[in-house]
């Protein structure tokens, strides 16, 4: 399924060369993963060995490095607290194994693609038995955002337009089509 990424180029930002690894990498199989998810994971791990695909690690918290850079360049100091909020967690990793978003992303920087395999757990329910539309929106936002980030540096979602083709039962593989428009951030202009 095609994931379209519309990107406006402003400035290229230095990528974060070495991020502090302060947490467990959650983009790896755990007992809650279905056989389908595991199969897709294995398939793409093979692709990583063969060519230009890479598995993207995923942590519960933004690294302190990222926090400092973001704070310094983009936010009015009056608005943002001094320290990283204690207990703050990346939204899509704020769940125990198997209960929320189980996902892994692979990127191909040559083709500018990001693939995300996603399995929604019982705490993402909307209509009984089905995944909440907002949960789907969140994982799509995360995927398209990762794609844009790898292409152009720090990005923020400007517009998200999702057409839901069919309801997604919990614990099934994601099938959705989305277009995302991302603005890139100019370090010389504050956001707030």
């Amino acid at each position, binding site marked *: 399924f095609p994931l379209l990424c519309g990107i406006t180029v402003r400035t290229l930002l230095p990528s974060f060369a070495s991020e502090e690894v302060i947490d467990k990498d959650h983009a790896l199989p755990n007992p809650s993963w279905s056989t389908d998810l595991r*199969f897709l994971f294995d398939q793409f791990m093979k692709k990583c060995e063969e060519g230009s695909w890479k598995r993207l690690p995923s942590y519960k918290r933004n690294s302190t490095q*990222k926090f400092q850079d973001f704070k310094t360049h983009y936010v009015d100091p009056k608005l943002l607290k001094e320290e990283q909020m204690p207990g703050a967690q990346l939204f*899509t990793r704020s769940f125990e194994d198997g209960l929320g978003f189980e996902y892994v992303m692979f990127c191909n920087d040559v083709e500018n693609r990001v693939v995300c395999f996603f399995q929604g757990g019982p705490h993402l329910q909307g209509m009984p038995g089905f995944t909440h539309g907002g949960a789907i929106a*969140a994982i*799509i936002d995360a995927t398209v955002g990762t794609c844009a980030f790898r292409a152009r540096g720090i990005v923020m*979602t400007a*517009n998200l337009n999702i057409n839901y083709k069919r309801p997604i039962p919990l614990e099934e593989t994601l099938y959705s089509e989305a277009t995302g428009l991302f603005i890139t951030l100019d370090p010389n202009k504050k956001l707030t």
Partner: protein
Amino acid sequence: MMKKGFQVAARLGHHTPFPRTLRILPRLSSASAFGSSTDSLVSRFLRKTDFKDYALPNASWSPDMLSLYQEFLKKTNSEGWIKLPSFKSNRDHVQGLKLPSGLIATSAHLSSDISPPGDYRIFTRCIQVAGQGYEYVIFFHPTKKKSICLFQPGPYLEGPPGFAHGGSLTAMIDETFSKTAYLAGEGLFTMSLNIRFKNLLPVGSLAVLNVQVDKIEDQKLYMSCIAQSRDQQTVFAKCSGVFLQLSLEKESP
């Protein structure tokens, strides 16, 4: 090679029997099919239950949120607004009713030792620790077909450091759409969402979501939402959404 990978992904997803598109369900005339009026839907929604209502103030609510909540509570007496209860699962909200046959989801290949059977939570009540996730309450106006949601995102909803994840705000808007669509006209499933982000929403601060039903036609409910600060000086996002109308059926005794 890439295409094959995607085809595999798509095929693997289709284990459960599912209508190809929801449109194959019989199209009924608007007069007869969706006979449940807003009033009957609302009174059923508000009937007394033992389920815990999460849409009530707790220690994590900011003074801003508390005072605006009190304001709206007053309006429930005088101006026709209704405070909606919010339970842990949508199943609790629609007790005694079920989805039309053909839409019952089964999870064929679930890893069963993760959560106790029945520990399903509606996404916006996924984080139960007060103040950490979604703190919100929705007020609905049956005649005007409008809703107001007071939303305070907690630190577990973070995206950019110190601010709410775009997806968490989208989910809150989708959920407000969902309850509004259901009560205004039996809207059940999201068909589309189009959200335009304007400003970042700081974690712990209050966003007021104004939702209204723009039109109902062709088995679809069209709604729009503005998410802004209490003083309306900062707009966080604007969103439009379309929901599919579908009548729930009574569960067989």
